[in-house]
């Protein structure tokens, strides 16, 4: 039967061959053939290996003209290549070391178009993630960010989340990994996604036109939520008050030089209870309430405070001591906040 087969690969640079290439990919798109199937077709039509690098997944697929998968390898200069940037991020190329084939460019363009057109839910995520990044980009103007903001269906008030770890997968539509955190954008009607254990969130209110600022605030809230240990949960920028301003003005290295902070920092390794104890004393109205919050007997707490007074050089409770301790705690939180 072999001789009955029309030659699949293109040898002529003529209209009939061009139409055959176009019809081939149109057919695959109509049938919603898979991405790998499209790459196989490109290799068969071109008569040389074809490759598709998908930026969303980081996977490169290469096949030979018989449809056999080849090991991953990068694009080499000189090979014809087309970038994908509509439905998907990435590139496609043909591995043509010598003379270009007559319709290489057409084959690649049609392959790229077919891949973009048939981009499925995963690529929807890619497009949305791209829009989230653009909408939060401090280097772009309001006008440059607006199309992305509109694509995301955001207007007026937005809640911005900065989430650690960035690889966490939340059931939120508008999310993207940006510089070490997962960014989630929520409008007032959205249900907040459920947080897996060991996920920390910094949350900030923002306006749709100034999401970069909202993300910066969310990052501050996230940074400050790590110490004393709050293993999971949402820290709101709006609850930080002056601490937020302080965190913007003082670097962690600078905060560490404050005398009271240096003392606390030195004492912490031998006294792991120190941070929670200072925080409870600062935050609760009475020693009794602080002891309850710490799950210790009030006399235990009393012993600790007596010891601390000896180390710090001032009484931590009452009057000016309380204010000084609170400030030490704030600076200590900045000193120990996550980078970025």
């Amino acid at each position, binding site marked *: *039967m*072999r*001789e*009955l*087969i*029309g*030659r*699949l690969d293109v*040898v*002529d640079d003529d209209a009939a061959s061009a139409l*055959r290439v176009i*019809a*081939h*990919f*149109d*057919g*695959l798109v*109509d*049938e*919603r*053939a*898979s991405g*790998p*199937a499209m790459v*196989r*077709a490109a*290799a*068969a039509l071109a008569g040389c290996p074809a490759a598709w690098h998908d930026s969303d997944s980081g996977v490169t697929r290469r*096949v030979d*003209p*018989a*449809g*056999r998968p080849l090991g991953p390898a990068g694009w080499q200069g000189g090979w014809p290549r087309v970038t994908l940037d509509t439905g998907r991020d990435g590139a496609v190329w043909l591995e043509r070391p010598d003379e270009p084939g007559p319709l290489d460019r057409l084959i690649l363009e049609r392959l790229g178009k077919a891949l973009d057109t048939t981009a499925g839910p995963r690529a929807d995520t890619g497009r949305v993630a791209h829009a989230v990044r653009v909408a939060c980009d401090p280097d772009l103007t309001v006008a440059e960010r607006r199309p992305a903001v509109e694509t995301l269906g955001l207007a007026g008030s937005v809640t911005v989340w900065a989430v650690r770890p960035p690889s966490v997968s939340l059931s939120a539509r508008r999310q993207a990994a940006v510089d070490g955190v997962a960014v989630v954008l929520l409008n007032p009607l959205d249900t907040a996604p459920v947080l897996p254990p060991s996920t920390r969130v910094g949350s900030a209110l923002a306006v749709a036109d100034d999401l970069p600022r909202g993300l910066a605030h969310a990052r501050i809230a996230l940074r400050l939520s790590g110490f004393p240990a709050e293993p999971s949960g949402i820290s709101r920028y709006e609850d930080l008050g002056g601490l937020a301003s302080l965190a913007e003005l003082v670097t962690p290295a600078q905060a560490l030089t404050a005398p009271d902070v240096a003392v606390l920092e030195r004492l912490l390794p031998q006294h792991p209870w120190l941070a929670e104890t200072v925080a409870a004393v600062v935050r609760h109205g009475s020693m009794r309430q602080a002891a309850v919050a710490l799950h210790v007997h009030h006399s235990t707490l009393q012993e600790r405070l007596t010891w601390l007074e000896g180390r710090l050089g001032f009484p931590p409770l009452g009057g000016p001591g309380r204010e000084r301790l609170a400030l030490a705690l704030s600076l200590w939180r900045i000193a120990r906040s996550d980078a970025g």
Partner: protein
Amino acid sequence: MSTTTPVRPPFDPELGPTLDAIRGMMGALDRETLAERRTMLAEGIPGMPAVDLTVGGAVLVEERTVPGPEGDPEITLLILRPAAGTGPWPAVYHTHGGGMVVGDRRTGVDLFLPYITEIGAVVVSVEYRLAPEHPDPAPVEDCYAGLVWTAKHAEELGIDPDRILIAGGSAGGGLAAGTALLARDRGFPTLTHQVLICPMLDDRLETPSSRMLDGEGMWDRNDNLFGWTALLGDRQGGGDVSIYAAPARATDLSGLPRSYVDVGTVESFRDEAITYAQRLAQAGVNVDLHLWGGGFHGSDLMAPHAAISRASQAARDEFLRRALEG
């Protein structure tokens, strides 16, 4: 008899464009287009290089004219042997395809070249008389005559006579099955395997698959009727057709060799191939049956790059290697 066309499954998405391109090049097969189709097959597609049967010198190519059936003309065998080594080797006796009406001893033989060079095997491909000029029993009897000659001259050809299998695709698959039945019933020779690739087994055209393609796919019901009518004339579909011409009609399938049957779900031959495989098993014969969802007739030859084609080729290749390596 129902007059509605049975439903068919969809073609595999990767195969669609290839099918469109080929149907664009070839129309229906009938008396008017037959001569043109034979020429197309013999001359090949313009620009497509002919297959090098010597595989760069690794294969010795020989043609022999040998006796045909008693009282009938001689037949030609194409014999392909490893250039290196002395054998004895296992042999593939190949009966080519082409709907009973087109093709020659070279048609489809390249599928078996790797076994000559990689495992060490002899391929013998028979040129049988074609219908409609030579109706049944000419084609299958020519095939059987060539097989007998091959088995009797095994030593001379470097073939181990105990390791001969028969293989063919499409009409060649039907002829392989028919020849295997002849070999069983006439007591010579013994075959180790029969490899039936999308085989043409049943002239009665009663199954749903034999009616489901009308102007779609490859080898639709019209082409199929033309092929069977060319072979059988007025006898097609009637009570006077031998099991060697249409193996599906055989009631006793016991004693046949280890079998391989493959077919696509969107082929005219689908239902008869599945039934034949099932009946082989029920007769105590071991059979591998592979049904390829979305495949059309000959699709893995016409679109070899598609994932479904790679899967069916791999399955067939694995079986043949197992069969030839003993």
